[in-house]
């Protein structure tokens, strides 16, 4: 009997080892994190978004009443900023793409022994404060700064005109701040391209431009998609650039959410706006990724 028991026990132990439970165990910390810091707050936020002020009239106290009209109210109050956020974020993303693509291309294919140094330089600005770097643009674009001086000398800007506290300054700041998020994924996808496929293209009667259009760019598409998403998503929700470099007419949705939350203590509207921003970005990203996946962007 003892022998049988021992055998059973051992085979049970063997079965225990063979069962592929390890992957699930490894998932637990990540899932717990995701639940605590993403799922739960998201549900909480959803709950807050349909609350109404308490009968007591006390500031900052809300009760759940499932008032979905909060969304309509919130949107009609911030439609302008909403649209502006999307447009600014789109422009900043396109500018970042236009600046980053040649840069990433040069680092991936032409930089030789300077490759690592150039990559460090792309990331280097992260070592200084985001706020300081944004404020610095006030100096760069200021009336005494080099950009205005050059533009005035070239008569592109009138003698009275300036660049600060403008939509231009906000978009410039956003483009600058999110540039590395565009450059690094682009570099990663360009660097993976086998140079022999480019040689094969030129061997098969494609000149430089055609090779870029038909081979290089399509093969870098994963990087383009990743880079534009990593730029567009945070840019659409950004409020620092609009706060520091803009004026009252360049307020973005982030500014509205911030004001609702901290100044007016209107949690339901802030929550509803956050949800709408998230939904809008999600829909746009889904459409975009689907198009990119079928290479319709080419």
């Amino acid at each position: 009997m003892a022998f049988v028991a021992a055998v059973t026990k051992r085979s049970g132990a063997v079965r225990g080892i063979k069962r592929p439970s390890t992957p699930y165990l490894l998932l637990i910390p990540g899932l717990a994190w995701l639940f605590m810091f993403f799922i739960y707050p998201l549900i909480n936020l959803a709950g807050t978004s349909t609350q109404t002020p308490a009968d007591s009239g006390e500031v900052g106290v809300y009760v759940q009443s499932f008032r979905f009209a909060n969304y309509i109210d919130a949107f009609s109050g911030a439609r302008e900023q909403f649209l502006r956020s999307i447009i600014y974020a789109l422009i900043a993303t396109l500018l970042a793409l236009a600046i980053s693509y040649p840069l990433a291309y040069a680092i991936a294919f032409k930089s030789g022994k300077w490759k690592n140094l150039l990559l460090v330089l792309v990331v280097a600005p992260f070592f200084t404060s985001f706020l300081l770097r944004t404020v610095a643009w006030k100096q760069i674009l200021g009336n005494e700064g080099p950009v205005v001086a050059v533009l005035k000398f070239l008569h592109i800007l009138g003698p009275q005109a300036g660049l600060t506290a403008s939509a231009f300054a906000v978009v410039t700041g956003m483009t600058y701040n999110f540039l590395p998020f565009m450059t690094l994924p682009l570099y990663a996808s360009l660097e993976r391209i086998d140079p022999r496929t480019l040689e094969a293209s030129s061997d098969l009667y494609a000149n430089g431009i055609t090779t870029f259009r038909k081979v290089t760019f399509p093969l870098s598409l994963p990087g383009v998609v990743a880079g534009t998403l990593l730029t567009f998503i945070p840019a659409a929700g950004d409020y620092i650039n609009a706060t520091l470099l803009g004026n009252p007419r360049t307020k973005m949705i982030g500014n509205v959410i911030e004001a609702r939350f901290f100044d007016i203590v209107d949690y339901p509207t802030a929550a509803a706006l956050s949800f709408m921003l998230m939904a809008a970005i999600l829909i746009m990203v889904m459409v975009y990724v689907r198009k990119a996946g079928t290479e319709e962007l080419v």
Partner: protein
Amino acid sequence: MADAAASTKGDLTLTNLVKEFGDFRAVDDLSLVIPEGSFFALLGPSGCGKTTTLRMIAGLEEPTAGKIAIGSTDITYAKPYARPVNTVFQNYALFPHLTIFENVAFGLRRRGIKDVKEQVTKVLELVELAHLAARKPVQLSGGQQQRIAVARAIVNRPALLLLDEPLGALDLKLRRQMQIELKWIQTEVGLTFVHVTHDQEEAMTMADTIAVMNEGRIEQMGTPVELYESPKTVFVANFLGQSNLVKGKVESVDGEDLNVNVHGNRIVVPANRDFSTDNHERSVLIGIRPEKISIEHPEANTLGGGIITDISFVGVSTQFQIQMPWGQELAVFEQNDGGASHLQKGDTVSLSWKPQFTFALDGTADIDAGTSVNPDEE
């Protein structure tokens, strides 16, 4: 097909071609003519300049000096996309984002041909992969990718098809099969093939003409039989197959024959197989292929007193290592037809062969040239 690419035809002529990378001379004053319609192999160890030569013909490298022409058209400085030349790259370099069909159609589309379906289907049928047209390259095996790489190139009907170690990534069995298929395709489509390889067996199986390259120069050019039976340099003798080379001294020239004193033995070499370029009074290397030597049957040329140090059975033949009285080890391959089966390690034997199989090379040459190179290294 009204473009310059298709109208250029004729022999490929390389004239005094030189390519330098910094101080390194990869291709050194190379001249050769590859006749239209031939299957030509550039054979040599890695670093001998064969791939650089191919890349210059493709337009992927610019020559430091010299001239490349197809027929009477000078293409030395023409852009790769403006040459009637297509390449099968070493690792195929298929476009990973395109289907097999679009990979093959790529060159046709770039030349503005609208209706590509018929041509693409035809060439896919030629390589027997028409059923995979809708797949992506990653979904194909190595051998299938290789055939698509060939199809993608030959669909353009180039004046010249360049193959850069096209079979290097395949396993031995598949490689043998693809060698036969490539040879068949070449006959079928009638294009000029220039094939770069370090595999001497591959070159001999496929090519009409082989140029053996070493250190940026052509050592010898000829048919596989010429190169094997009459190697003109030690490098070729050792690189193509195996050779026994023994130092000797020419004692007299007796009509059609040279009498060579090899460690006290008289070895006869036909005068027309004396490829040494030095003065005959000086030393020569006499050469004999291992399978030409007989241990049992006495012939005119004999070296005695050898001791068998190693025997290895390889199926069709048995390979003997035999230590000669002067210390050198020679190789002998005997057919497994029962004649040499009684031989044992340690037996003392005489090696004999017919004089017409002997060849003579420069005695001053490095006897090991072409042996130390590992033909499988990239």
